[in-house]
């Protein structure tokens, strides 16, 4: 009987005649939403499929990165980083192989004689500087050249 009625009815025409806004105005949406289990609804959603349909590049283009970064508390962020863990991940062998660090480490293991020579030379350079400073004062900020043109680049000149 119901089937017969439904077949006789033009459902589309009926829907067109219904004022949906008026119907919706009579619906207590909050009450309805309270009765809906959103978790259950979300469980049924395939988020991967949704994300596949989102153009992330387009979304990112609309993001003001400078403003975003300005809102970040970098100190707080760094405080949460485990530096020791990062340091542990560094390939020291590759670092030594690819940089001058190896040469420095080899040099650092040299004898006490090297240390004494370095110290002596450093003191002599300090004395050189002191003497040059005195002369500079006597000669009213007279400035000499740093070194021969073939050995010292113009940038190093005072």
């Amino acid at each position, binding site marked *: 009987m119901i089937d017969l009625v439904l077949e006789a009815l033009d459902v589309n025409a009926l829907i067109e005649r219904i004022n949906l806004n008026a119907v919706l105005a009579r619906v207590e949406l909050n009450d309805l939403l309270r009765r809906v289990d959103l978790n259950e609804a979300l469980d049924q959603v395939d988020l991967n499929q949704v994300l596949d349909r989102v153009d992330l590049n387009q979304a990112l283009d609309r993001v003001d990165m400078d403003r975003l970064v300005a809102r970040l508390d970098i100190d707080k962020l760094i405080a949460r980083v485990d530096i020791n863990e990062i340091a542990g991940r560094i390939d020291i062998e590759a670092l030594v192989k690819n940089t001058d660090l190896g040469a420095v480490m080899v040099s650092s293991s040299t004898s006490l004689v090297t240390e004494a020579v370095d110290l002596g030379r450093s003191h002599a350079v300090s004395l050189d500087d002191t003497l040059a400073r005195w002369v500079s004062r006597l000669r009213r900020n007279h400035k000499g050249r740093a070194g021969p043109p073939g050995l010292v680049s113009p940038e*190093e000149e005072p």
Partner: protein
Amino acid sequence: MTGPADAGLPAPAPGSGPARRVPLTTRQNLRGHYAGFASRFIAFVFDCAISIGVFELALGAASFAASVLVGTSIHWNRGNIWVVLAFFAWQFFYYAYFWTASGKTPGMVLLGVQVVGAEGGHAGTRRGLIRALAFPLSFIVAGLGFAGILLGRDRRALHDVIAGTAVVYCWDAREARLRSLARHGGTRRS
């Protein structure tokens, strides 16, 4: 010892800038910069000690050889003209040999300084020989020939000007600093 260089600022070449303290081991690589008076003077003192020591040893060895071979030992009189001439000849040979060969006497090796051509290249045989010949001239008139090291723009002594040479640092101060840091860092860790 602390200074601006320890605060990350490059230290100036000695005498090339305004007054600043140079740390024990400077952050700057001094290689190629004109060497100062103190480094050169200390190197010279070492060279004097070495060359005079070797000369004395040679005299002693000659005296010993004479006593063994002839049976009579020779007592060298330091005022003897031949001894004086031999001494000056030896001094000339000592400096000329090292300056022409590598630009570095043993004392200069110790202090990390080197003789180069005025433009910065290898001093060479001719300039090395002229420098050794002109070297005594710098001592004349109360050592005024050395005043150029302190007062001159290129820190050159009279014999440098005559020979067309200059003296520069040839050691890497920055590397020495890193060595020192690594050494002391290692000591602290162990």
